């Protein structure tokens, strides 16, 4: 019986004794398990699936599940390898004291077993407690009423248990392999194997600079949003590669360069930091690059999704300037009057009042606008020169504005929003002289955020008809208005309009019965649209914040482990320096400057990355219909500040651990 209990007892004792290393490891495990559970819970939750726009939301959350799962595997491996490195000496000692590798494997098995048990128990409890909170947050973000009740998702529990048992099994296996391969002496010497000074790898250093520069270059020169989608990934990959190389190779090349200048190097201020950094870079370059990339990811994700979310209202306004939009394709004859009165009757029947909006028949075509010259070729080019033109006939213009002045034949009035058009406009074989430039672009939903330039041209009726004839798609009638009253009244109004005219088509066959005809009629409500956008952007924000927290936790833990391990490495070094004549305050100063650089280098680098990525991200946000650049600037800046504050706090806390270790 005692023999049977030996391994579990020893394993439990080991975990307690190594708690300085084990506690953060188990906390990491618990936190990742809880997060994975929550993500699964939300993805599988019936309430979430029943929400408006659930399809896109579930996809986003499912993606989140995969990311958190993958992240758990990688990150737990990383923390474990750190843990094992620190414990090599202990394991070597067991070996020397006469334990076979089988015995050690037994101890390790029970350690993993206990760790897995604690992780799953605490992780699932924590996950369940937080899942309701997260559901509340998600519902709030996507402006959806909160479902009542509390539930435990068995599926999510099963997935979490499977994933983490798998991870612990893999970790155990890798530890066993590590021990099998090592002999006791190397284990006993543990971390103190003579570290070689890193070699300068000029090629890699250069490659790092080129790769980083390339990534930055792409981010700066890309103008078209559609190109940005693809190029963003290229740029991200280049920057990630560049960051790794920069930290591993370029930094060493630079530091060695500094060291080779005796008059610069041999001063108290620089002597210890430069050599210390050089030494550390080899061990920690990858860790620092990881921190840098994780930080960048947190910053991009959080600032992007926050901005997207905050901009939802304005992007809804862009796409849907009015409460109700009636969109009619190719109305002829008296179709407009008939539909108009049908809508009025439907609203009046419900006692609802409409206020003025836009009532406009127009033709849209796409093209390119370059150097003030519009060409109707290449309607969907993927560059920054694409433009659209909203073409209005003179009589429509007169009806809309009440103006008596109208363009004559061959003349055009131009509303140019952000486009610079020269003095002529030619399209589809017609050319016009621009005789007047108008203020105030008519409000329609014809504002594709991906199109860089918007033009609106008023031409004579004959010319309008001529262009219409040779154009493959017919003109559309855009009839939009606001409703007075509460949200419920607006919904009632929308329903009334839909039942009166909505989603109908009046074909030529029926045209004999009615005096006017149209191809189809479509009624949309702004609140429906807003709900779907909120669900999408809210989902993104939720995921952004959630993953932001996950990655931040990871960053914090990497920093903690780094400080701890460096503390152990530096302890002996500073003891020697003290004997040779370095005073305590001097040691403190040297430590501080070294730690500060190592600590804030990744953060600084991350901020530089963000600064370069800024323009490209604004282009990406355009694809998601967000046009407000200053909003994104504010979001990025405030995210960076908040992140820096948290980072600084973590620094202060872990630096204490470091000093305690070194002292």
């Amino acid at each position, binding site marked *: 019986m005692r023999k049977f209990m030996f391994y579990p007892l020893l394993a439990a004792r080991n975990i307690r004794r190594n708690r300085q290393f084990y506690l953060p490891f188990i906390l990491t495990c618990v936190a990742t398990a809880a997060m994975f559970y929550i993500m699964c819970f939300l993805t599988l939750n019936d309430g979430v699936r029943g929400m408006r726009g659930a399809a896109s939301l579930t996809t986003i959350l499912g993606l989140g599940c995969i990311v958190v799962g993958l992240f758990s595997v990688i990150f737990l491996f990383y923390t474990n390898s750190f843990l094992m490195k620190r414990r090599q000496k202990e394991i070597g000692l067991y070996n020397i004291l006469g334990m076979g590798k089988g015995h050690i494997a037994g101890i390790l098995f029970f350690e993993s077993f206990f760790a897995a048990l604690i992780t799953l128990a605490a992780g699932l409890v924590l996950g369940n407690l937080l899942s309701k909170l997260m559901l509340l947050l998600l519902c709030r973000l996507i402006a959806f009423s909160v479902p009542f009740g509390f539930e435990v998702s068995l599926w999510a529990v099963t997935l979490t248990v499977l994933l983490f048992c798998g991870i612990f099994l893999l970790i155990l296996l890798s530890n066993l392999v590590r021990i099998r391969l090592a002999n006791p002496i190397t284990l006993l010497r543990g971390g103190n194997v003579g570290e070689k000074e890193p070699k300068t790898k000029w090629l890699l250093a250069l490659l790092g600079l080129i790769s980083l520069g390339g990534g930055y270059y792409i981010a700066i020169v890309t103008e078209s949003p559609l190109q940005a989608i693809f190029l963003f990934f290229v740029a991200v990959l280049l920057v990630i590669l560049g960051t790794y190389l920069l930290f591993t190779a370029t930094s060493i090349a630079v530091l060695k360069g500094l060291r080779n200048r005796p008059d610069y190097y*041999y001063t108290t201020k620089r002597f210890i930091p430069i050599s210390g950094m050089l030494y550390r870079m080899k061990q920690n370059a990858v860790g620092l690059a990881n921190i840098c990339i994780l930080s960048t990811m947190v910053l991009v994700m959080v600032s992007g999704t926050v901005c997207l979310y905050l901009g939802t209202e304005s992007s809804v306004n862009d796409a849907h300037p009015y409460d109700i939009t009636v969109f009619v394709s190719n109305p002829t004859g008296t179709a407009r009057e008939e539909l108009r009165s049908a809508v009025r009757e439907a609203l009046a029947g419900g006692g609802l009042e409409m206020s003025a909006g836009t009532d406009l028949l127009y033709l849209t075509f796409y093209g390119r606008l370059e150097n003030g010259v519009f060409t109707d070729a290449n309607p969907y080019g993927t560059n920054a020169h694409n433009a659209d033109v909203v073409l209005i006939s003179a009589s429509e213009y007169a009806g809309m504005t009440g103006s008596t002045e109208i363009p004559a034949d061959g003349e055009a009035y131009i509303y140019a929003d952000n486009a610079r058009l020269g003095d002529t406009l030619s399209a589809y074989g017609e050319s016009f002289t621009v005789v007047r430039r108008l203020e105030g672009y008519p409000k329609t939903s014809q504002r594709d955020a991906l199109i860089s330039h918007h033009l609106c041209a008023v031409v004579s009726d004959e010319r309008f008809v001529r262009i219409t004839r040779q154009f493959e798609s017919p003109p559309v009638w855009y009839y939009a208005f606001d409703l007075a009253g509460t949200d419920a009244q607006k919904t009632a109004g929308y329903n009334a309009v839909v039942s009166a005219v909505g989603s109908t088509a009046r074909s030529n066959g029926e045209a004999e019965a009615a005096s006017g005809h149209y191809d189809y009629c479509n009624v949309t409500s702004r609140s429906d649209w807003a709900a779907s956008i909120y669900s999408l952007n809210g989902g993104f924000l939720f995921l952004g914040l959630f993953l932001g927290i996950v990655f931040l936790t990871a960053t914090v833990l990497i920093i903690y482990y780094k400080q701890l391990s460096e503390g152990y490495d530096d302890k002996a070094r500073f003891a020697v320096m003290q004997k040779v004549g370095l005073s305590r305050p001097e040691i403190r100063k040297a430590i501080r400057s070294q730690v500060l650089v190592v600590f804030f280098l990744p953060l600084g680098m991350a901020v530089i990355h963000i600064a370069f990525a800024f323009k490209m991200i604004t282009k990406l946000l355009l694809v998601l219909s967000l046009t407000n650049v200053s909003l994104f600037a504010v979001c990025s800046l405030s995210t960076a500040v908040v992140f820096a504050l948290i980072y600084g706090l973590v620094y202060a806390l872990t630096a204490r651990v470091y000093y305690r270790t070194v002292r």
Partner: protein
Amino acid sequence: MTLLEVKNLKKTYATRFGSVKVPALTNVSFTVEKGEYIAIMGESGSGKTTLLNIIATLDKPTGGEVLLDGSNTLRIPDKALAAFRRDNLGFVFQDFNLLDTFSLRDNIYLPLVLAGKNHTEMNKRLIPIADRLGITDILDKFPYEVSGGQSQRCAVARALITNPRIILADEPTGALDSHSAEALLALFRDINASGQTVFMVTHSVKAASNAGRVLFLRDGEVFHQLYRGERSNEALFGVISDTLTAMAAGGEANA
């Protein structure tokens, strides 16, 4: 001329809760003349290392005083201690205590850099020392790339480069093979012959037999001392061995 004077030194270590007091030095007094080569011998736990640490100002005694050139080292304020060590003492340790992060050259420069010397001056001082110690060719290597003997010679260079008043050596041959140990001891004799005061703590009879005077420490007191006189190293070796045997057999002090 007296360089170092140790008077009635006492050191008692208390356990963590102060209930048990363990005496390391009960009452130690001796003097070291300028240019002397003195070795301290004793068993483990006799207080050798405590004594060295106190002389090195790395530890404080519970009683007594240490005078270097007539001034009390215990009165030096904490802030000035590091500078004092740097300017007056040179250290050679059993495990070399070279820093992995520095090349041998930079390890030797370390105390001078800390003292704010410029590079030309440092280089001027290093050249003759490196030449004398035979490490000129390996100066740009790193500690893990050279042998123990070479590391220790580099440590000696680090101790010498500040022109210290006294070299404090703690088991300098402890981690070396017999060849390297022999070479290092020859080096110490040579350094001493050029006027450098050397104060060495050692286990090794061989090492001690190089000194001009040997102090034997037991249970925190100077138990006995031997002068070389006109004896050769071999003769001194014999006398030291006999003394140690007598001490081990439990003889009384007869100094």
